[in-house]
């Protein structure tokens, strides 16, 4: 992409804020053992339900307080980010590859390919997604890869439907007809003429899907169906925080804020990227 052009237009506050938060959270998750102030699994009943740093009774080194077992909340959030980001990237990319490919084929080739793929999508979307996810994980067994597979298996339809519609619109364009007159093969036209025009949508959906994957992972870990070990997850922390809401509100509120900021950032980041990738909007 044209760096000079981007520099001239500036990054815009939306992309900067969203990207900034995601970068911060991602770096913290990657370097979790280095940046986390405490061991996220270390229990200390002497330090249970410590409040965050600005309140009376806070202990230095436990910035966001501790939960009912005396584990450091900030460290648990940072380590929980690892699961969240791994799931977000792996599941969203898997769903994107499957969904975009099928959508492109359905939209560009039309006819039987479209009829078959569209019917499958209809059937797929008849299932409530969260129930479907719980069912899948119950069958696959808990664990990180099961969560990733479950999200990809459920959410490829989002990509498929949007990309199908966009590819369909593309096939009616004169440059596609021109390429046919010139004698290009159908696959060649699909990749060279159609795909570049749907990439902005794919990028936006991909970022949005990462946010959705974070939520679904949180839901699954909330009902204890995500990863089976004791490693902290955002959904797990929320579930624990819910039990002690009257004694230690921070155990519920901070993971919620983290989750909301992350999901919001993913969707805003996607929108901003779409605008950047689109040569007409750019």
């Amino acid at each position: 992409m044209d760096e000079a052009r981007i520099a001239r237009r500036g990054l815009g506050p939306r992309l900067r804020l969203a990207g900034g938060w995601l970068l911060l959270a991602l770096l913290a998750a990657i370097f979790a053992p280095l940046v986390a102030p405490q061991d996220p699994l270390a229990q200390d009943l002497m330090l249970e339900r410590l409040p965050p740093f600005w309140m009376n009774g806070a202990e230095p080194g436990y910035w966001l307080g501790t939960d009912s077992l005396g584990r450091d909340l900030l460290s648990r959030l940072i380590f929980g980010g690892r699961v969240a980001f791994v799931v977000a990237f792996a599941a969203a990319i898997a769903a994107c590859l499957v969904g975009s490919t099928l959508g492109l084929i359905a939209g560009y080739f039309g006819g039987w390919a479209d009829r078959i793929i569209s019917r499958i999508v209809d059937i797929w979307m008849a299932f409530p997604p969260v129930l479907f996810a719980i069912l899948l994980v119950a069958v696959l067994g808990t664990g990180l890869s099961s969560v990733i597979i479950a999200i990809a298996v459920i959410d490829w339809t989002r990509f498929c439907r949007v990309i199908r519609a966009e590819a369909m619109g593309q096939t009616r364009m004169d440059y596609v007809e021109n390429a046919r007159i010139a004698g290009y093969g159908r696959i060649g036209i699909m990749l060279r003429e159609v795909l570049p025009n749907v990439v902005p949508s794919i990028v936006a959906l991909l970022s949005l899907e990462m946010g959705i994957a974070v939520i679904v992972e949180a839901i699954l870990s909330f009902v204890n169906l995500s990863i089976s070990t004791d490693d902290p997850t955002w959904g797990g922390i929320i579930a624990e925080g819910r039990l002690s809401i009257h004694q230690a509100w921070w155990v519920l509120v901070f993971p919620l804020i983290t989750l909301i900021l992350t999901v919001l950032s993913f969707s805003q980041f996607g929108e901003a990227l779409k605008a950047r990738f689109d040569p007409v909007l750019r």
Partner: protein
Amino acid sequence: MSAACLDIRNLSAVLANGQRVLRSVSLAVQPGEVRALVGESGAGKTMIGKAVLGVLPSSVHIVEGEMLLEGEDLGRLQPKARRTLIGARTALIPQDPLTALNPSRRIGPQMTDRLVRILGWSGQRADARIRQLLDEVQIRDPDRVLRSYPHELSGGMRQRVLIAAAFAAEPRLIVADEPTTALDVTVQKQILRLIAQLQREHGTAILFVTHDLGVVAKISQKVSVLYAGKVVEEADTAALFAAPQHAYTRALIAATPRYTDPLASLKPVDEAVLAGLAAEIAAAEQAWRPPHG
């Protein structure tokens, strides 16, 4: 053996409901000649162009007749061979320069792509060729244009680019589908002059689809007048304007607005003429029997 660049004989096409949209059309374009195809919208002008280029919509089926491109019957070729032949010998100058260029690709690769991939030229040779053509269509800053995305160019510039692209591979036949309709009036004239000039220099035959008789008079040597998918008159351009034979042609010429008499109200085609045409079409449909039952 006919020497015609394009020879369409008795071509009929129907829609899925059996209605005929092209009614036994015959027309020929000789090498180096410009044949105009005039008619009102919906007369099937564009359909003929699409049929020649092999990009008819899937709802339209050719039921009889043949199309010979430099003596080769397109209907008898295998699809693959037909595509290759059409790709190598023909090109299209499209109606709307806005949708005819891919918005997410730069002009340069879009123009050279075809030379490199279809004709197997080296990238360098294709690039030199494209620059030469851009010079011929009077684009003075080829570097900037080649680096641009389509939306960064004006409509007239885009149409110049498309004309250059159409002539670049030295096709024998160009189908120009109302190439000036989407442009504003001042640009139309320049573009028309450019097409005429390149046509003369390259000796390319053009099937020029238009509804504008003024354009016909300027650019073509031969004319076919089309009404409801039927060729109602065919003549040398000069002869057609001097002595139109068919009542519809006379009415069309009379309906053309003139600069010499700007206050005269526009004349629609006469009711009696339309009734006569309807009778003619009905008679043709009566006489026509679809092949194979």
